[in-house]
C-alpha cells in the first residue's frame, strides 16, 4: 500500500530498528527477570521515575515486560516466519519441479492445510504439543505454510521452462540440484514480498496464543500482558493498552519494511 510522502518508506524500518534495539538491549534497559515483583502493585504510569510505565497487580515492571516482550515477539515471529517460508519453499519447489503425481499429492495436502482454519490449527497443535516457545514456532509453521508453497510452486513452474534450466539439464546436472540450485533462486523473488506479511502474521498469532494462555509460561510476552491486564480494564486500562500498542507497532513495522523491500526489488504491486 502506497503512502503519500517520501518519508513514509522510512517509517517501517525506523520502527523495526527501535524494536530490534529494545530486544537486543533488554537486559541493559531493564535488568533482571521481568516476571519478578519489584515494586508496589498497580503503580500508575508516569508517577514513579524508577518505573516509568507503572506496575501490574503483582508489582511487575511494565516497562521491563515491554522490552523483554519485544524479544519474545521478534524472535518467535522471525523463527516462525522462517520455518513457515522454509516448509512452503520446500513443498512448492518439489511440487512445481517434479510435477505429476507428486505435484497432485502435495497440492491436495496444501489445499487441506489451507482449508483448516489457521488459528484453530495452531491452537490445537500448541495445546497437544505443550506451551513452549519452540512449540509455538512449530505450530505457526505447520498451520501457515500453504500460501508460500502455492506462490513458490507457481514461480517454479514459470522458471523451469526458461532456457538456462534446459542448459543445466543438458549439462547433466542432477534433477535435485537443478531444482534447488538453478530453479529455486529464480523463483524466490516474490517470496520477499510475502516475508513481511508472514512475519507480521506470525507475531499476531503468537500474541493471540499468549493472550489465550498458550504462550511460553516462563517468558513475559505482550499477548500475556494484555491477558493479565484484562481483569483490571476499568481501573488500570494502561496495562492492556501499552502491550497491545507494542504488538500493533511491531506488526506494522515488519509489514511496512517487507513492503518497502519488495517495492525496491520491483515487486511493488504483487504483495
Amino acid at each position, binding site marked *: *500500500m*502506497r*503512502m*503519500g510522502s517520501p518519508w513514509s518508506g522510512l517509517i517501517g524500518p525506523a520502527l523495526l530498528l527501535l524494536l530490534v534495539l529494545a530486544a537486543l538491549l533488554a537486559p541493559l534497559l531493564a535488568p533482571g527477570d521481568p516476571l519478578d515483583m519489584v515494586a508496589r502493585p498497580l503503580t500508575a504510569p508516569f508517577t514513579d521515575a524508577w518505573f516509568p510505565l507503572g506496575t501490574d497487580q503483582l508489582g511487575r515492571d511494565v516497562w521491563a515486560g515491554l522490552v523483554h516482550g519485544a524479544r519474545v515477539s521478534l524472535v518467535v515471529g522471525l523463527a516462525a516466519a522462517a520455518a513457515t517460508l522454509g516448509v512452503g519453499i520446500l513443498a512448492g519447489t518439489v511440487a512445481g519441479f517434479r510435477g505429476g503425481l507428486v505435484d497432485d499429492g502435495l497440492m*491436495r*495436502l496444501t*489445499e*487441506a*492445510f*489451507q*482449508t*483448516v*482454519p*489457521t*488459528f*484453530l*490449527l495452531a*491452537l*490445537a*497443535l500448541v*495445546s*497437544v*504439543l505443550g506451551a513452549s516457545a519452540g512449540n509455538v514456532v512449530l505450530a505457526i509453521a505447520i498451520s501457515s505454510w500453504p500460501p508460500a508453497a502455492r506462490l513458490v510452486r507457481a514461480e517454479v513452474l514459470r522458471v523451469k521452462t526458461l532456457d538456462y534450466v534446459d542448459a543445466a539439464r543438458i549439462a547433466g546436472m542432477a534433477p535435485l540440484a537443478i531444482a534447488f540450485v538453478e530453479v529455486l533462486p529464480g523463483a524466490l523473488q516474490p517470496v520477499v514480498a510475502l516475508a513481511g506479511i508472514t512475519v*507480521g502474521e506470525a507475531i*499476531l498469532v503468537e*500474541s*493471540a496464543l499468549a*493472550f*489465550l*494462555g*498458550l504462550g511460553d509460561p516462563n517468558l513475559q510476552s505482550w*499477548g500475556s500482558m*494484555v491477558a493479565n491486564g*484484562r481483569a483490571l*480494564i*476499568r481501573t488500570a*486500562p494502561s496495562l*492492556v*493498552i501499552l502491550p*497491545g500498542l507494542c*504488538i*500493533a*507497532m511491531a*506488526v*506494522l513495522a515488519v*509489514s*511496512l519494511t517487507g513492503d518497502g523491500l519488495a517495492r525496491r526489488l520491483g515487486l511493488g*504491486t504483487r504483495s
Partner: protein
Amino acid sequence: MSWRRLGRRLLQAVPVLLLVAIGVFVLLELAQGDAVDAYLAGIGGAGDLTLAAELRQRYGLADSLGARFLTYATSLATLDLGWSIAFARPVLDVILERLPKTLLLMGSGILLAALLGIGLGALAALRRGRPTDTVVTTAALVLNATPGFWLGLLLIIVFSVELRWLPLGGFSTLDSRATGLAAVLDTARHLVLPAATLGLTYFALYLRLMRGAMLAAAESGWVTAAKARGLPTRRIVLRHMARPALLPVVTMLGLQSGTMLGGSVVVETVFAIPGLGSLAFEAVSQRDLPLLAGILLAGTVLVVLVNILVDIVYGRLDPRVGDNLGRVAGD
C-alpha cells in the same frame, strides 16, 4: 450454478476432508494419554492397570494404528465425532448448539469487512493520490496490524466502560425475557462490538483488492469506450468499474472465511460469546481433545461450505462463470 456443478464441487471437497480427518487423527495420536486415561483420572482410578487394559480392549484403543483409524473414520462417516469429556455429552451436540452464534458473528464480521473494504476501496480509488486515499489506506494498514483481542478490549474500554453505550459482552442480556423483535435487538446490541472488531481488523485486504481492481478497470478499454459513448459518470463507476472489481473481493471472502473463524475464537473469548470459538478455548483449557478435534473438523467443513457458497455468488456476479460452464458440462 447448476446442480451438477454443485455436486462436482462437493465431490472435490472429499479428498480434502479425508486428508484433514487423517491429520486430526494424527494430532489425537500425538497427544499424550488417551480417552481411557482421561476417564480414569476423572473417576479417580488412575492406578488400576487391569481396568485400563480392559477398557482399552472394549473401546478398540488396544488395536493397531490402522484399525484404530478405520474405527475413527467410520464413526466420522456416520457423523459421530466422539464424546466430550468436559461436557459429558456427544461432541456433535455441543458443537451444533454453539454453531449458530458463531455463524451470526462470523457472518456479520465478514459482511462488515466486505462493506468497509468495498466502499472505502472504491472511494480510495476514485480519490487516488489525494488526502482521502492516504487516510483511508493508512487507517486500513494500521487496523490490519492490530491484534483483534486488543482492538476488542479497546472498544470495550471506550464504548462499554467509559461511554456505557453498549454491553460488555455476552450474546444476550442474561435475565432478559424479551421475545420477538426486542430479543433480536438485544442480540444485535451485543453483536455490535464483536462484529466491529472482526470487520475492522480484516477489511484491509478487501480494501486493497477493491482499490487495485477499480484502478485497473479505470484504465481498461471498456471504461474508455463507455466514456466515449458519453455514459454518465455514476453509471461508469457502478457498472463498468465497481462490478468487475467486486469479483476478486468475493473470491477472497471465501478464502478468508477460515481466517475469520480463527479470529472469532479470540473475539468470542474477549466478548464472552458462547460460540464455537470460546468452545475451542474451553476445550483447550480443559484438555478435552475429542471436542477440540471435533471443532477442527467442523471448522474445516464450514470453510468448505462457505467457499461453495462464494462460488454460487461468483456465478451470479460474473455471467461468464456458472451457467455457461453448466452448459458445457451438458446441462
